[in-house]
């Protein structure tokens, strides 16, 4: 399949990229990993007149802790997260997430920022970033602004980004001691989107009760969903079997799946319940 014709622009700096985005408006798209965009262009679901290839902008691929945040650069590839000792040891929820995205070849190109900016509720990082309470740093003509992840996903394929803004960094608050998280995904085969997936991140207080909690759901609604009722229920409580059951049931109630080839809505809700139980149990194990 041959994608529609476009003009190819390859800026070397962020300001140059932004000026192209400003100049060509809605007719321009950012080409980052391209692993969602290029397939969409082949199917004519996207027909940008201009592609602004940001891959040659230097200094945007990094994973580092700075201040109270883990900072992931706008061009950091999924495979870099997978191979990072820092991510593996201290942010296992991100490691869980990165390694189940598509397949090794796709992960070599695909970026975390693109996974968020695409605004696809079937993507995996959104739920995890919701659970972690991340912030998205967007750089545009007026400089940087920080968008809390809870305000980032507007609707299907639509985010809070303006057309002339680029995601330059993702910030994740460094988890305090006694924190743990996990991401559980059910997919039909390697490389498939989630039938459903659940991210859970929690911090325990010194008595072992749940002090902070974040629960994110993948591919069970028009946007990634933060299961707030479930979070509210479990906050301040011990994560015993009964409370895990109840939290999972509440999370399933917050899912808004539609039936498709991957299963019925009822099945997917059941799946959210089970995956929430597993994610919470694993997060608890990692926190203690």
């Amino acid at each position, binding site marked *: *399949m*041959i994608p*529609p*014709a*476009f003009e190819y622009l390859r800026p070397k700096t962020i300001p140059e990229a932004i000026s192209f985005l400003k100049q060509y408006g809605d007719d321009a798209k950012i080409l980052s990993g391209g692993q969602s965009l*290029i397939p969409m262009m082949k199917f004519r679901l996207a027909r940008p007149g201009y592609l602004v290839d940001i891959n040659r902008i230097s200094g945007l691929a990094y994973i580092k802790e700075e201040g109270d945040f883990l900072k992931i650069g706008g061009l950091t590839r999924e495979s870099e997260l997978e191979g990072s000792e820092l991510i593996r040891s201290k942010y296992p929820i991100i490691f869980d997430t990165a390694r189940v995205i598509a397949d090794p*070849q796709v992960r*070599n*190109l695909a970026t975390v920022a693109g996974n968020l900016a695409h605004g696809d509720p079937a993507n995996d990082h959104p739920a995890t970033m919701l659970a972690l309470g991340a912030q998205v740093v967007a750089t545009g003509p007026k400089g940087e602004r920080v968008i809390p992840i809870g305000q980032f996903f507007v609707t299907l394929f639509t985010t809070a980004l303006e057309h002339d803004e680029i995601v330059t960094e993702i910030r994740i608050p460094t988890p305090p001691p006694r924190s743990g998280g996990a991401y559980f995904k059910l997919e039909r085969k390697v*490389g498939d989107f989630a039938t459903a997936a659940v991210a859970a991140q929690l911090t325990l207080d010194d008595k072992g009760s749940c002090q902070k909690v974040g629960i994110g759901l993948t591919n069970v609604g028009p946007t990634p969903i933060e299961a707030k009722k479930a979070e509210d229920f479990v906050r301040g409580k011990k994560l015993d079997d009964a409370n895990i059951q109840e939290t999972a049931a509440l999370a399933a109630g917050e899912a808004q799946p539609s039936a498709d080839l991957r299963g019925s809505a009822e099945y997917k809700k059941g799946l959210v319940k089970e995956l929430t139980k597993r994610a919470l149990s694993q997060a608890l194990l990692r926190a203690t």
Partner: protein
Amino acid sequence: MAKKQLVHIKVNGRDREAMVEPRLLLVHFIREVLELTGTHVGCDTTHCGACTVVLDGKTVKSCTLFAVQADGSELLTVEGLMKDGKLHPLQEGFKEEHGLQCGFCTPGMLMSSYALLQKNNKPNEEDIRWGISGNLCRCTGYQNIVKAVQYAAGKMAQGGTR
């Protein structure tokens, strides 16, 4: 039609260049411009991995990348595996262990396995299965592909080539 752009890529050690339309996919550049037809187009939708090549040391699906993006890069295709008239240990392994039947997926399998062995020269079965998880094979059931990669890893460990 969009303006053509000059693309310069070092392919299997040789400098190659051409003027191409930006929308030309890397796989079509490889097959139709360079006439290296070892790299296959399978699903054309980023699933099957038949078009896998090694770009600057990393595997990519060349159906999901524009040739202009690879400008200035180094590319290894299946044609680049054989050296001095001798098969690469992986190619030998696929032959010895019956790692292919129809052979359509084989170039991609070889490139994914090649990149895996570059990173990890003693992969266990799970590492191998994980390493080729972006490549589909409809004939072998993967069993013999795993054996072929193990064969190559063994051969390379014994001071075999590369």
